[in-house]
């Protein structure tokens, strides 16, 4: 299915670099982004920046599944939100330190990814997507009913705690650098997954699954593996977000959140490395500044969807990549 996606997107395949690790060009870009990340909190509101970082990681995780795995999941909010709830609960009720709380949340997303993934993988294309949606709705229902999630109040007043028991994360500024480290780490890890033998096999499966099978690859295992990885990193983003906003709520597991991450990936550029980061930045910034306009946000988002699909299928980074004639 995503074979058509790739062809029609017409982007120079990123994974052509093979398993050689990070290209110099990409290394420079990552370094540049990191430097921007280090300077930004001195100029912009740190909480706003942390929101961008968390969603950038979420979008990269989703892109791993869609752009590189070729699998469209309609229910990715389930992992993001479930991890958010578990991390919030771990920090507030169990009193875990923030790094352990985030680990707990990520772990929950991993388990959920294994359970849902192993069932969803059995189907292809739109049916696969609908199975993921069905399970995401069940997760939403569970979040609504279960006492520990607090229903529509959510889990509030989540303590940020002390990192490793030492560093107080209550000041936004301190927390920002921790979040920067976590999200960058996650994004780089995802990059490494893409540029590895595993990533190569994924590409083969995405382009021609029957052929990959005939070559002896257990494609279902690879598909499950990328699903679980994607869910895990989405969870890491959600768990971190819970600590940033000190709140885990139903919004995190609602299907509109799943829709948002699709939008971020689409606008940024599916199947590109930096696309999701750009897409997340654009969408979060837009929501921030347009929020006064009330219903206009929906209209603008809808218009962006339409324009992106009709004219900019490659996304911002995809277009940039074509223009520069280099993979991004």
């Amino acid at each position, binding site marked *: 299915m995503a074979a058509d996606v790739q062809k029609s997107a017409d982007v120079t395949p990123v994974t052509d670099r093979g398993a050689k690790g990070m290209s110099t060009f990409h290394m420079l870009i990552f370094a540049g982004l990191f430097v921007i990340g280090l300077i930004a909190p001195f100029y912009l509101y740190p909480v706003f920046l942390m929101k961008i970082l968390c969603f950038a990681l979420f979008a990269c995780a989703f892109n791993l599944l869609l752009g590189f795995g070729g699998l469209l999941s309609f229910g990715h909010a389930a992992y993001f939100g479930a991890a958010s709830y578990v991390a919030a609960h771990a920090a507030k009720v169990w009193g875990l330190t923030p790094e352990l709380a985030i680990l707990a949340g990520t772990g929950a997303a991993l388990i959920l990814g294994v359970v849902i993934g192993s069932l969803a993988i059995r189907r292809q294309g739109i049916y696969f997507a609908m199975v993921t949606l069905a399970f995401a709705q069940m997760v939403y229902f569970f979040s609504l*009913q279960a006492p520990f999630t607090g*229903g*529509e109040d959510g889990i*509030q007043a989540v303590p940020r705690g002390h990192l490793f028991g030492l560093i107080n994360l209550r000041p936004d500024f301190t927390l920002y650098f921790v979040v920067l480290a976590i999200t960058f780490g996650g994004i780089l890890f995802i990059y490494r997954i893409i540029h590895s033998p595993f990533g190569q096999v994924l590409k083969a499966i995405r382009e021609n699954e029957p052929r990959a099978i005939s070559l002896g690859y257990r494609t279902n295992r690879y598909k499950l593996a990328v699903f679980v990885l994607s869910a895990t990193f989405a969870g890491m983003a959600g768990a971190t977000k819970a600590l940033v906003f000190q*709140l885990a*709520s139903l*919004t995190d597991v609602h299907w509109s959140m799943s829709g948002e991450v699709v939008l971020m990936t689409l606008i940024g550029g599916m199947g590109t490395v930096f696309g999701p980061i750009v897409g997340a930045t654009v969408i979060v910034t837009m929501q921030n*500044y*347009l*929020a006064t306009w009330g219903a206009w946000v929906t209209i603008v988002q809808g218009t962006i969807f339409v324009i992106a699909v009709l004219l900019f299928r490659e996304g911002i980074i995809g277009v940039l990549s074509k223009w520069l004639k280099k993979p991004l």
Partner: protein
Amino acid sequence: MNRTGLVLAALAASMMSSAAYANDINIKIGVLNDRSGLYADLSGEGSVIAARMAVEDFGAAEKGINVEIVSADHQNRPDVASTVARQWYDEENVDVIVDVPTSSAALAVNELSAERGKVFLVSGAATSDLTGPACNATTIHWTYDTWALANGTGRAMVEQGGDTWFFLTADYAFGHALERDTSAVVEEAGGQVVGTVRHPFPGQDFSSFLLQAQASGASVIGLANAGGDTTNSIMQAAEFGITQAGQALAGLLVFITDVNALGLETAQGLVLTESFYWDLNDGTREWSQRFADELGTGNKPTMVQAGVYSSVLHYLKAVEAAGTKDAEEVVAMMKEMPTDDPLFGPGEVRADGRKIHDLYLFRVKTPDQSEGPWDYYETLSTIPAAQAFRPMDEGNCPLVQ
């Protein structure tokens, strides 16, 4: 973040000669509510207008108090409310947040306000937890709460003979709380709860649940839900002939804007409790006319918007009296000074942050009884302030224990 800036100081300064006081106090009021969703009509822009009117009526400019009002839309979500409040307090020096309908959002802002030491004047939200376990020294719950509504409507209906109740409850924390509070009142007044059904929130078709309510034979069907769920339930109850067949509907959280949306034909006979009605007396009428002229949509003010006016007015008086805008001092002064305004009459703010005033039991008029637009209510009784709200010692508020 998002704000509509409204600098009254500049306006006042340009309109009248400003006798500048040596030590001016600068105050920024944030009106945070639903501007585009389900509760936009009962709060929304109207609350901003109410706040503005309070600042003008108080005469802030001549007293050396410069007030700026900003507003934002929290979309009835706690995460958005929390984010806006956080940004307002941290980045934009907002001193006090007012309104905030939707209990989950109010609880989130309450938490943040307490942590940051800022004043929080709640008008829109209903949860009685704000003066219970979640109470603190800088929050005041102004207009109404779930306990007061349950007590007003529940007790009144039992006393009128509606002694068997069936609840149609929205299946979320707020709905459960409303059902719980009203059940307690009903049983205490000698009534009986014969059944309850929880519908998914939000719902659209209530026919199945209404049928169950009808089958129970209860004399009163209590609607423990809000907004669209309530209006839909009422509409469909009329469609299925439930009210015609003799069962009474008790709207446990109904606003005048809901009655307006339903129309008198459907809503007639509905019994409800509110703390303000535009047509109650000359004082309310005069203010409501001014409000309606400003709003310009033809809508009359709701009790939530009236509460914003009243709370901001009292807040400014307290700031003037205390000579400071420090949160704890101002709120302490608000509790010390009795309140009086043409909207709610005389009242006071209790130690647990609960504002006390009279409540009214209303019944929606029939189309024949109504003499004009927004002439919707007939007053069945007045519940005196002292009995209208939960006794302070029953709330589990840490401040008074």
